[in-house]
């Protein structure tokens, strides 16, 4: 029925906004220092807490640094750390979940109990514990967040692998004489990874909040370096007098989370066969 196609085209606008915002964020992350009007770490005590003006579009912070420049330059760390976290989580999740689902038996049992151990603790508590072990700093925050999230992904991947293995097209491939390895490579894994990317893109926002949250607590990026969580942390003392200092980095986090969620929706529509099937008719 072409009616569902209508729903789809309506959604396309959301997808376009998502793509555009993500592209903009990437641009800021890659070329931040060149795009920023000022040096993001330049302290100028004479220009403290200036309101927005033609020379400082978003004003300055308590050390006289240009807020807009700090936002733009901060994109790289805020986004980059999330991409690293996600990369680590995906690799761990696919490898461990994939092995559990494919090999099965005792290996599956062992790996899943390992996952359960990690899933037992609230992610934030686990992250704190790992940071306490590893020490503070951005690298350790990334490792800690990745380690506290991989188990969830591993379980998802395992479930997807098990579900895929019994799909008709995998059986059809078996009847076509494809070996176990070929079936995994050509049918099971591509479809698992497709679904996983959709989930991951929706999870980016969540991870970003984690990284910023830990930076806000002073565990990740240390103060002079521009990063959105750090900026919020810096601004918290001026929450009553200069609330816009909290607002701008908060807004950036909000926009990024939204952008990646829209991107995730769009990816899902592209990759999910059930949605595709409905659009077709």
């Amino acid at each position, binding site marked *: *029925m*072409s*009616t*569902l*196609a*209508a*729903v789809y085209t*309506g959604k396309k606008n959301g997808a376009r906004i998502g793509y555009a915002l993500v592209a903009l964020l990437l641009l800021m992350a890659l070329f931040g220092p060149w795009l920023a009007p000022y040096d993001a770490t330049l302290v100028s005590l004479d220009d403290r807490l200036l309101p927005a003006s033609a020379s400082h579009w978003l004003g300055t912070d308590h050390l006289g640094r240009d807020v807009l420049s700090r936002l733009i330059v901060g994109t790289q760390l805020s986004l980059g750390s999330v991409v690293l976290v996600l990369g680590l989580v995906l690799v761990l999740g696919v490898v461990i979940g994939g092995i559990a689902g494919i090999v099965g038996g005792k290996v599956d049992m062992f790996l899943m109990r390992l996952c359960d151990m990690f899933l037992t603790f609230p992610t934030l508590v686990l992250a704190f514990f790992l940071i306490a072990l590893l020490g503070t700093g951005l690298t350790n925050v990334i490792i800690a967040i990745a380690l506290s999230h991989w188990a969830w992904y591993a379980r998802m991947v395992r479930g997807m692998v098990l579900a895929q293995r019994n799909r008709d097209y995998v059986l059809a491939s078996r009847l076509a004489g494809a070996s176990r390895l070929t079936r995994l490579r050509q049918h099971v894994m591509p479809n698992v990874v497709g679904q996983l990317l959709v989930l991951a893109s929706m999870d980016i926002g969540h991870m970003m909040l984690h990284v910023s949250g830990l930076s806000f607590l002073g565990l990740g990026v240390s103060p002079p370096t521009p990063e959105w969580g750090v900026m919020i942390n810096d601004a918290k003392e001026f929450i009553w007098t200069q609330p816009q200092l909290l607002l701008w980095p908060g807004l950036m986090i909000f926009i990024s989370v939204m952008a990646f969620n829209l991107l995730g929706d769009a990816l899902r529509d592209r990759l999910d066969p059930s949605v595709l099937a409905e659009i077709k*008719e």
Partner: protein
Amino acid sequence: MKQTLTIRDLTLKHRQRTLVDRVELTLKAGQVHALVGASGSGKSLTSLGILDLLPPGVHSSGASLLLDGQAVDAAQLRGRQVALVLQNPRSAFNPVRSLRQHALETLHARGLQGVEAEQLIQATLHEVGLHDDQRVLDSFAFQLSGGMLQRMMIALALLADSRFLLADEPTSDLDVVAQARFLDLLQRLVEQRNLGVLLITHDMGVVARCADQVSVMAHGRIVEQADVHQLFNAPQSQEARTLLAAHHSLTMESCAP
């Protein structure tokens, strides 16, 4: 007693494309009106259009509904005068509520509760051939077969005291035995309860089995409207001839009693 339900000038559009074009249908109490056509001819959309349950993006324009000649609103009819039976019964039930809750909810809308409601539910389940009524009522949709769920759909329609039934491919997901029993039931209710039925199908065998009037649909338009005997003996439209040719090539040399 309501005797006729008339749909006039039902046009459904999505953007600029016309999906259903000026469809006119009249359902009479005590009769089965079959709406046939190939997949994609707009027959399912028509049934949704009658009750104004259209998918997003599809707009109805200019349609009017007449119940015994009186103009009525689709929202007034839905679930009361007119009930809908869908192809996939499993999706029509709330998976976490028992069938008893569904039945009670339907009666609640009519203001019936307590012992009276229980008795009516029991009698209605027997009427649609669900004799193991307590077990059925305690079940959830996923625990019952497709045939039983379709009977339950009918039972809910009867509980709502609907006079008209719109059935969209009600037997396409059932095997032939369950289909035959369902059609038997439908026919019995049409005769005993004087129900008016719009039966949407692509199977001329179903039409031959229980329809009185037939409308043939193609590309969103009704291309032929005739008495069932007239249609089978002298089809006028190309669409009807195609459907009948396929039907006859499967049944003519058959040895069905």
